[in-house]
C-alpha cells in the first residue's frame, strides 16, 4: 500500500501542507514573538541538520495573537549509552501568544510572554499520531545596543518529551537610524531534554534587523543555523 494512502499519513500530510502553506512554527527563541495589532508575523528556524520550525500568527490585539506552527526535530536515541541514531519527529498545531507584561523604560524595554500551543505530533518509533501541549514562557530585555532573552518551552504528549530551555545575549555593533540595517552579535545557549536524552548546543549568530525583517545566521555543532522573522 502506498504509504501516502494510509489514513494517518494522509491526514498528517494535509495538516503539514496547510501549515507549510501558511508558513507556519514553533515560536521558539524569538525576541518578539508577535507583531503589532492587526499585523502578521512569520517566523522560521532552520538548521542544516534538518531541524526546522515555522510559524505564523496574527495579532488580534496589541497583546494577543493566534497562529499556526509546524516543527521537525531529531530526537537522539540512546543505544549502549551512545547517541548512535535519532528518530525524526514532526508536530503541527495552533498557537496562542500573549504579552503578559511589558515594561517600557526610558532606554529599554522588557517583556514577559506566554506562547501556548496544542496540536498533533508523529514520528519514527511511534504507532500513530498523538496530541501534544506546549505552554511556553519567554522573557526579554532590550536596549538599542543590548539584548538579553530566556525561555522555557516544554512540549509534552503521550511518550513525547521535548523541553527546550534557552538563554540569549547579544549586542549591536552600533546604533542606527530606523531606516538603516542594524547588525548584532548574538549567542544562544540551548538545552533540549528528550524522553531519554539531553542535547546542549551553543550557537553564535550574526543578526541583521531592518524595519520588520529580522534574520540570523549562525553555526553550532549541528551545522548552520538560519532564523528569520518578518512582521507585516
Amino acid at each position, binding site marked *: 500500500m502506498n504509504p501516502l494512502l494510509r489514513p494517518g499519513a494522509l491526514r498528517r500530510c494535509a495538516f503539514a501542507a496547510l501549515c507549510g502553506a501558511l508558513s507556519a512554527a514553533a515560536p521558539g527563541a524569538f525576541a518578539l514573538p508577535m*507583531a503589532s495589532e492587526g499585523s502578521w508575523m512569520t517566523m522560521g528556524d532552520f538548521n542544516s541538520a534538518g531541524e526546522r520550525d515555522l510559524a505564523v500568527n496574527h495579532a488580534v490585539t*496589541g497583546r494577543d495573537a493566534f497562529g499556526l506552527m509546524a516543527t521537525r526535530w531529531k530526537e537522539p536515541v540512546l543505544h549502549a549509552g551512545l547517541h548512535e541514531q535519532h528518530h525524526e519527529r514532526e508536530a503541527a498545531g495552533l498557537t496562542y501568544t500573549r*504579552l503578559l507584561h511589558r515594561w*517600557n523604560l526610558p*532606554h529599554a*524595554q522588557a517583556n514577559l510572554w506566554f506562547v501556548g500551543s496544542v496540536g498533533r505530533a508523529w514520528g519514527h518509533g511511534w504507532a500513530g499520531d498523538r496530541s501534544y501541549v506546549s505552554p511556553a514562557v519567554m522573557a526579554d530585555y532590550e536596549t538599542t545596543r543590548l539584548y538579553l532573552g530566556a525561555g522555557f518551552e516544554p512540549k509534552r504528549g503521550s511518550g513525547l518529551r521535548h523541553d527546550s530551555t534557552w538563554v540569549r545575549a547579544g549586542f549591536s555593533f552600533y546604533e542606527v537610524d*530606523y531606516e538603516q540595517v542594524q547588525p548584532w552579535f548574538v549567542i544562544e545557549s540551548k538545552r533540549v531534554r528528550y524522553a531519554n536524552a539531553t542535547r546542549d548546543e551553543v550557537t553564535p549568530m550574526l543578526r541583521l534587523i*531592518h524595519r*520588520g525583517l529580522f534574520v540570523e545566521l549562525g553555526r553550532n555543532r549541528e551545522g548552520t543555523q538560519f532564523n528569520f522573522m518578518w*512582521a507585516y
Partner: protein
Amino acid sequence: MQTRRPMSLARHMMGALAAAAVFVLPGAALAAEAAQSLKLQVNGMVCSFCAQGIEKRLKALPAAGPIFIDLRNKVVAVEPLPGQSLDAQKVASEVREAGYEVVATETVAQTVAQIRAETRAARQGR
C-alpha cells in the same frame, strides 16, 4: 500726458506691492503655521520592530503626513497633511495602543524633514 505715464506706472507698482502684502504674505504666514509637527518622547521604543508598529498606527490616521522615528532618542515626530491638523491626544493614544509609553508631547514649528535634518546634524556634530 507724457508726464502722467510714469506716475501711472508707479501707482501700478505700488498697487501690485499692496496686493502682494494683502494676499501673498498672509499665505506665506499660513504655510509657516502649517509647518508644525508633533514630537513625542516614547519610553520602550528601542527596536525597529517597535517602531514599525508605531509607524503603522500613525500612518493609519487620516491627517497624518510624514513621520520620523528617532530610535536613539526615543522620539516620534509626525506632521499633518497640508491643510489638516493632528490631535495630539489621539496621536499619543495610538502610540500607547501600540504598547509604548508616551512621556512627553510637544508641538514644534518644524516640518518632519527639518526635524530629521536637525537630528542628523546634531548626531554628526557629536
